[in-house]
C-alpha cells in the first residue's frame, strides 16, 4: 500500500474521532450541568461564525453586497432563498467590480 493510501486512512480515522469524540466524552456524564448545556447550545453560532468572520477581512464591495442581501433575505425567507439571493448578487456584482 502506498504512503498516500495510509495518509488517507489515518486522516479519515482522525476525522471520525473528532466527529464522535465530543459525544463519547459528554455521554460519560449522567446529567449535564446547566452551564455545560448553555455552552452546547452556543455551539452552532460559535463555530459557524468563525467560518465567516475572517472572510470579512478580505471582502470587497461584491462580497459585502452579497452578505448584506443574504442577511436581509434570511430575516424572512428560508435557507435556499437566502443562499440563492446572496449567490446571485455576488455573481452579478463581480462582473462589475471583480
Amino acid at each position: 500500500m502506498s504512503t498516500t493510501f495510509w495518509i488517507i486512512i489515518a486522516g479519515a480515522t482522525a476525522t471520525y474521532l473528532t466527529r464522535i469524540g465530543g459525544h463519547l466524552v459528554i455521554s460519560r456524564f449522567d446529567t449535564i450541568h446547566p452551564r455545560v448545556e448553555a455552552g452546547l447550545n452556543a455551539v452552532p453560532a460559535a463555530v459557524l461564525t468563525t467560518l465567516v468572520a475572517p472572510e470579512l477581512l478580505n471582502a470587497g464591495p461584491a462580497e459585502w453586497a452579497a452578505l448584506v442581501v443574504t442577511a436581509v433575505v434570511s430575516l424572512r425567507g428560508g435557507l435556499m432563498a437566502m443562499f440563492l439571493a446572496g449567490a446571485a448578487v455576488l455573481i452579478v456584482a463581480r462582473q462589475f467590480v471583480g
Partner: protein
Amino acid sequence: MATDVISESGAKSDFWQGVRLSMPVVVASAPFAVLFGALAVDNGFSVLEAFLMSALVYGGASQMVGIQLFGQHVAPWLIVLSIFAVNFRHVLYSAGIGRRIAHWPIIQQALGYFILTDPQFAVAEARAQSGQTVGFAWYLGLGLPVYVFWIIESALGAVFGKLIPDTHALGIDFLLPIYFLGLVLGFRKRPLWLPVVIASGAASIVAYKTVGSPWHVSIGAIAGVLLAVLLPPHHSGVGERP
C-alpha cells in the same frame, strides 16, 4: 404535528423532507468537490486516491489542506495532524448533536456521526431547536445526497479538473461563507446569540491574524462557547426548566 407517528410512509416523507433541505448544501459544496478533485490530481494524487479521500475523510476544508501539504512533500504525520486540527471543531458538533440522536440504535448513531459536517450539524440542530424530533430517516435524507454528490464530483474534478473556467467570476470561492452566514442568522432567536457571535467573530479574527489558520476556528469557537458557559444561567435560558 405528525412527527410521533412512526410508520413506513412517515419515515419516507421524513427522508424526502431532509433531501429537500440538502439541496442548497449540494449546490454550495459542488464547486469545492470538483476543485478538490482537480487540486488532488495536480498535487500528485491518483483519481482513485482523490475519490477515496472524499469518501473516507468527507471534510472539504481538511481535504484541501491535506492535499496542499501533500504537494509540498510535508511529512505524513504532519499532514494527518493538520487534517485533525482543521476538523477539530467537529468535537463540539458531536457533543451538541449527541443529545438529539441518543435514541437511535447504535449503528445508526455511528453512521450519523460519520456524516456530521458543518451544514449537517447546523440544520439538524435547528430542527431540534424548533421542537421537532431528529429522526434517522430525516437525518439521512439531509446527509446522503450531499455525501453522494461530494464523492462523485470529487472524482469528476480529478478526471476533468483542467476544464474549470474562471472560478472567481462565478463567485465559487465565496459561496460557502454566504451559506454559513445564513446558517448563523438562522440561530438568531437563541438566548445569548448576539454575545456569542460577537465573541466568536472577534476571537476568530484576532486568532486568524496572530496564530493563523486553521486554529482560528477552534479558538474562536471556544471563545463563544466559554462565554455562554461563564455567563449566569438565567441569561442562557437553560436553568429555567423545571
